[in-house]
């Protein structure tokens, strides 16, 4: 039963993305009949390999709508601000060549797959930090830092408010 639920959810998500992609293409209101059928077929075919993997470790709580609103707020607010600041910092390092790289380790205490993925992607998208590895068992992050200020950093020193937000959104 759970398996079928996972497959159906994946199919619905793929269908929604396809419908957004083909907005304003047809005579039936916003879509044409051909697009609707093609989208349904693609959604079913795509859900067969994906459905089981995406929701594997009980990440069903991602379907709660308040998490989506939090995520959008995070993307526009704190994340974009950190990224802009770090971009200017790295631009300065590109021009002057003043770097002190190293791979540091820290423990952000995240348990779910989605929380870890969100934090790792945020870190990698922010200039100056790059997630090289995440330990699956302990959840420790190995991050390549372009200017190491402290070889034994706390999570906040490397990536600012991201761990708090990842916990708020995904756990």
């Amino acid at each position, binding site marked *: 039963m759970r398996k079928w639920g996972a497959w159906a959810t994946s199919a619905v998500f793929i269908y929604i993305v396809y419908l957004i992609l083909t907005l304003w293409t047809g005579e039936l209101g916003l879509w044409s009949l051909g697009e609707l059928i093609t989208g349904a077929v693609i959604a079913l075919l795509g859900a067969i390999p994906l459905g089981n993997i995406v929701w594997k470790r009980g990440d069903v709580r991602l379907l709660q709508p308040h998490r989506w609103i939090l995520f959008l707020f995070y993307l526009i607010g704190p994340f974009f601000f950190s990224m802009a600041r770090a*971009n200017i910092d790295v631009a300065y390092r590109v*021009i002057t060549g003043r770097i002190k*790289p190293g791979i540091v380790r820290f423990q952000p205490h995240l348990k779910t797959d989605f929380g870890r993925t969100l934090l790792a992607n945020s870190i990698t998208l922010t*200039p100056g930090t*790059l997630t090289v590895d995440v330990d699956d068992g302990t959840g420790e992050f*190995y991050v390549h830092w372009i200017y190491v200020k402290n070889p034994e950093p706390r999570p906040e020193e490397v990536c600012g408010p991201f761990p708090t937000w990842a916990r708020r959104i995904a756990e």
Partner: protein
Amino acid sequence: MKVFLYLLLAIGAIFNGLGAFALIRFPDVYTRIHGATKCTTFGSIFSILAVVIYGFVKGGGEGGTLAIHALLALFFLLITNPTGSHALARGAHRAGVRPVGAVVDRLEEKE
């Protein structure tokens, strides 16, 4: 309006240029990933935002399609860019490429 769009495109172009410059300046694969993919992402975000705003201002089916396709491209860029960077970095470290001039390498100590 036009001036604002040109400003966004200019910021995008400057950061893309810096990303290319970083490829020459930085010493090894990890720092080059910092330069190339980061500056490119920031540059691309501003270029795509210019297209999105242009599409919405133009309005109608054509402009709306343009804006929404650009937004989707931005969304998937934000997902795939960090995933790809991470795969490159992890692959390089596993293949035995060590970070040049590193003060500390906890991952090597672990392995």
